[in-house]
């Protein structure tokens, strides 16, 4: 399965991804100028959290055991067999907000004006996700989940090596991510 990965050291917290996601995926006009004039105000499906030095663009993780999927009262949320992603069928959504209360990352949003929940679908029907496309520092990248496993494996190996290197004396804090 493909996911959107984030290079933490490259994210400036500039919110360009938010802006363009809102315009491209949430607005009728599809341009920033048109989007800012629309009511309801277009809603992005990515949210930049944190501040300078520690910003992070958050969007749906398409969890393999997705709490939102279990919670949906109407069957509007379902898993797309092919891509493995959690997708919302807007015409079935009644805007009950149950899913929003079950996503631990808070990335499925109530669109109160449209009475439906909105979430990231990794721009499934587009060539590339908008956020990935517009990020000025290329902090976002579409990655295969397996690649990430590899990356994590590499990190674990480095950790082991480094630990062996210090001869078990004292404690060393390593950059092993969260």
């Amino acid at each position: 399965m493909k996911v959107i990965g984030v290079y933490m050291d490259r994210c400036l917290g500039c919110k360009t991804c938010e802006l363009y996601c809102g315009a491209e995926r949430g607005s009728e006009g599809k341009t920033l100028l048109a989007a800012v004039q629309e009511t309801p105000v277009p809603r992005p499906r990515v949210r930049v959290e944190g501040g300078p030095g520690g910003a992070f663009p958050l969007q749906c993780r398409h969890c393999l055991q997705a709490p939102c999927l279990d919670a949906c009262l109407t069957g509007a949320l379902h898993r797309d067999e092919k891509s493995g992603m959690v997708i919302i069928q807007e015409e079935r959504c009644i805007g009950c907000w149950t899913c929003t209360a079950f996503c631990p990352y808070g990335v499925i949003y109530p669109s109160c004006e449209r009475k439906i929940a909105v979430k990231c679908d990794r721009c499934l029907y587009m060539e590339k996700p908008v956020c990935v496309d517009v990020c000025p520092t290329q902090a976002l990248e579409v990655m295969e989940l397996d690649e990430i496993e590899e990356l994590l494996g590499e990190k674990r190996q480095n950790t082991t090596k480094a630990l062996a290197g210090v001869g078990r004396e004292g404690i060393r804090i390593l950059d092993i991510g969260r």
Partner: protein
Amino acid sequence: MTCIIVGGGRAGFQAAMTCRMLRPDQAVTLIDAEKETGYYRTLLPQFMVGALPEERLFFPTGNNDPLLTVRTGVRVKTVDCDSRSLTLEGGETLGYDRLILAHGGDPYLPGILAGPPCHGIFPIRDLTNARRAKAWLTDHRQVVVLGGSLVGVKTAVHLRQAGLAVALVVRRGHILLRALSPESTEVIEAHLRGLGIEICVNAPLEEISASGGAIDALKVGGRWLSCNTLLVATGTAPDTSFLEGTGLLTDGKLIVSPGLQTSDPRIFAAGDVAVISSRGEKISPNTWPQAVSQGRLAAENLYRAVPTPHRDMTRINAMDLHGLAMVILGPPVSGAEVISHARADAFVRRELFLVAGRAVGGALIGDITAAGTIHALINSQRQLTAREAGLIRPRTENVIRFPEQTGRRAALILSPKRSSL
């Protein structure tokens, strides 16, 4: 090697699907008392008022599965744990290797309604009654909804939205008595009144008046309300009578371990019928998401030497009351510390109940941002940091902060495997 599931509601269906997926060689039989199964009970209010076509009520169905037998319109009458068999209405006996009890709750009807049959009275629980109510409501548009539970409130709002005259009658206290604090209820009640719903509190049902065999008025709390339809949402109680003598019941309740196992290791329970005994508490969330997650877990645990405990014991319930969003995070707890943020003018109230620094419940009304994050914090059962407690303020005033990450090179991926915060 047959697995039998009693009850074809959300929990039973989920259990059946999970069993078939995990053990493709094992046959599964699902037995349900209703003529039709596999529908979204939660959508019955919308269906009753004509806001949702009937076909939308049913779960999307997959391919025909020869090893899944669904028997509808038949009730399980007895269970015999020793011979591992059960009997159906009509006398047929079926043997099982594992059994999942997922027969939900039956609507509880106040005794006074057991009198002579009277047209225009319907419980809100099943499709058969919802169809009858729908037909009746087309020319009987003065409705009393009895019961201030979530189902009652939700139904009242949908009826009102569809233009019917609605009174919501509550026996004692306030609406949503067991779910919300009085302060939160005030916000909801004000909103419902604004929608044009008449709310009668501390009004027990005393008398029913009928003419021509149909209801025409109700006496509640000493006062007559005229109406031509009565919808009853006074709660549900599981029918466990067919389990008497099996040793599975404690004080008439089907108590299960956190792994959803009953006192018979071959029998599990899931959904509204299950009362989970965990850390000295008896928990029965009675919600749709719980029916799904419990149905799945019961099926997963059937053959495990040590059943995996259920991770989420919360009774989160969300709904949109015609423009007012509401998430119930857990009922008020006496003696709990309350932290809140309120803006009465904007119908906003956000509150959390804390016991020894841990969040145990609360409600978000009018502004439901961070609901999922707060839910995860309640589940974590740990003491909240000041920043986490700050989530009770609305979105504009809080952000999730990430620690400084200078020099970090590698990609940080929040694992999509199992979300945990």
